[in-house]
């Protein structure tokens, strides 16, 4: 069984995000990048399936600039077998990513596709769902447990009211939540081995996918600074403020 995992190169979670002076986006020059943490969980899950003997091959895809290869390399060091790099310097929105992944799925025929539930840069949380729709496959989103059976997969989902378990017919899409697993560190010997694993390069054109943006970013601004709280003397004053100042009741 082949597992396909998509990983995204994002600004490292430790970096304090700053908006560019011209408000066209966030500052990315001279900023540390790393793999989207939810995608690390996706890679970890796929590698565990391989270690358990359930998966035979783990293929990692990343879409982005030349440096996205480093992100693929990280996944290979964690234990994935080979990589596919769709090189583009353009902004790629979830629908474009889903279409690209659909094209790759057509070439690779995986039984399971695992992606992070969202990327920490734009927090869209759309790619997995869109891919499922485009392929007509089942989807188990926000997974905190994945249990593969013969021809099906049981996915425990983190939903607002608690946990929900769905049984999906394979092939299927799983998007990962934080509690699914704790990703490993790639060890030094595995970092060295990863250098020798193959990464195929391709492009959107070669895959025949139109990745033009359907949404236009007008401007990016910092959220308003939080104001200090106020102490109220009585419940009456609180109600008054909620009614007249905050206007929420």
């Amino acid at each position, binding site marked *: 069984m082949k597992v396909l995992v998509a990983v995204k190169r994002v600004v490292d979670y*430790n*970096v*304090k995000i700053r908006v560019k002076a011209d408000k066209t986006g966030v500052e990315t*020059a*001279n900023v*540390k990048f*790393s793999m989207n943490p939810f995608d690390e969980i996706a890679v970890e899950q796929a590698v565990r399936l391989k270690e358990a003997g359930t998966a035979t091959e783990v293929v990692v895809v990343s879409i982005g600039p030349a440096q996205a290869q*480093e992100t693929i*390399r*990280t996944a290979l*060091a964690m234990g994935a077998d080979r990589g596919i790099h769709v090189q583009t310097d353009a902004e790629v929105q979830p629908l474009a990513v889903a279409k690209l992944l659909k094209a790759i799925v057509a070439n690779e025929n995986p039984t399971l596709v695992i992606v992070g539930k969202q990327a920490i840069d734009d927090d869209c949380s759309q790619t997995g769902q869109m891919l499922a729709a485009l392929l007509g496959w089942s989807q188990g989103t926000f997974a905190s447990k994945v249990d593969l059976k013969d021809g099906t997969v049981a996915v425990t989902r983190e939903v607002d009211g608690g946990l929900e378990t769905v049984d999906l017919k394979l092939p299927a899409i799983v998007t990962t939540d934080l509690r699914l697993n704790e990703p490993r*560190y*790639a*060890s*030094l*010997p*595995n*970092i*060295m081995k990863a*250098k020798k694993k193959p990464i195929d390069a391709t492009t959107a054109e070669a895959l025949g996918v139109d990745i033009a943006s359907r949404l236009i970013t007008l401007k990016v601004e910092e959220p308003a600074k939080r104001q200090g709280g106020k102490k109220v003397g009585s419940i009456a004053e609180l109600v008054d403020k909620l009614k007249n100042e905050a206007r929420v009741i």
Partner: protein
Amino acid sequence: MPSAIINSRDVDFLLHEWLGVEALCARDRFSDHSRETFDAVIDLARRLAETEFLPHYRTADRIEPRLDDDGAHVLPEVAEAVKAFARAGFMGAAFPAELDGMQLPHVVYTAAMAHFMAANVATAAYPMLTTGNAGLLAAFGTPAQIDAFAKPEIAGRYLGTMCLSEPQAGSSLSDITTRAVPDGEDVLGPRYRLSGNKMWISGGDQDISENIVHLVLAKVEGADGKLVPGTKGVSLFIVPKFLLDADGGPAERNDVVVAGLNHKMGYRGTTNCLLNFGEGTRHRPMGKAGAVGYLVGSVGQGLPIMFHMMNEARISVGLGAAMLGYRGYLLSLAYARERLQGRHAAARGTGPMVPIIEHADVKRMLLAQKSYVEGALALILYAARLVDEQHTGESEAQRRAAAELLGLLTPIAKSWPSEWGLAANDIAIQIHGGYGYTRDFDVEQLYRDNRLNPIHEGTTGVQAMDLLGRKILKDRGVALGQLAARIAKTVGRAQCHPELAVEAKALAAAWTEIGAVAGRLGTMGDDPHLLDNATPFLSAFGHGVLAWLWLEQALVAQTATAADADAAAFYQGKIAACRFFFAFELPKTGPWLRIVDSRTDIAASLPAAAF
């Protein structure tokens, strides 16, 4: 949020912008590597250090190792961190591929180790001792000894120690009395039975690893049954805690026991033991008393072999000292940016309070720390780069030159960070004010931990004698001439930049004076008072070396193009730290050298009764 243990931008600057370590990948030994692997290694080191080493820094200080009938027990978090370090492959990072290592350049490995030292120096001591131990065995052990002991150490299954000091013999190793008696031979080499006591043994016992590989200095009996006096009879032995069975696994318990744990001021996560060898009361391996030990090298070669390990251990001590200072600097910097107190002098007491980093004296204290700790890290990485040059330099002459220069700089690499990293920790407490004196902040522990470093692996006084006696005078200034040539080159380059011309001139003048004083000492022959004032000489020499390394860094910063405001501020900080060191620190060399040059005997001639 920048990492709280190290400034990653600084590590990048030192490794790549200054030392250009990527060029090492052109050499055969490092041809499997690239900038990408180096970055991945440093990144992994930072993550492991932050998640596995840092969180128990204070806990391991409060809950010391304990001793019971089974031996010494460490905090579970310490054991877990050491295992995680080994699992990630760091034990073997700098070892050659044929020993299952990653064959990383020593300089990159050292930069990676800097993160673990900064996060938790006491936990990092176990791997540090183990890699040094395995390195010695790889260089001097037989193939069977390497397979039996070094390989399991590189795999992280065994940990290692070095057993030199005895209760009555610390700095003076010719006076050890641990005795080794021949006891036949087996596949692991000539076998001896050892008896005696070893003191201050870090990692001497623990419950982290399957086995412990002690490297023990002992004296072999002469033909008359007496110990040979002096260093001549000193030999080196492998004494495993558990003897190995036919399959090479740990089996019968050897006759070595912990007699007690030392209760230290700092470094508390590292067990520190008094070990008894050959008591014969609790363990009698192969039916009789005496700790079974296997000879490494030949009889009488113990000290030269051990010093192979000591030189790298000394650089590691310098790294630990630098990083304790480094973390203290980062903590006090963060504190100074947040702590509101007082107003600008120009505000005349009105307006809102300002963060204390706005006060001139606090800035002075921060710059002093910055110049000490970033300078110390630069020194250690320079030394580590010389280790690579010594092994992989393109010509025999280059390799020899690197080895000589490394020998000269080793006493500085050990003592300078130990003295000035500690001075930085002192200032870090000062910036925290009363809070710094409490155990609610890490700066007091950093200070206590760092207080060990001027003591172990050769005290500052021993380093001073090594520098002046062995590395300069006995060497007849050969290595010193090499260093002077490198410094002259830096001075030449700096003179082309008007912004650094003052510093270039001051550095040249300082080294002219150091050279002249050393030259005059060289005319004293074998005067027994030659080394009486070696320590002020070491201080002056160390400051001279650091001033050179700061000018080197300032040159890089001066000629770099800043991509953005952050980069510009970083380079500005480097140049300011260089200026600060030249203005506030380098002038101290004058008074130190005058003491040496005067050959004063004020201290040396005072009888003990007059104190």
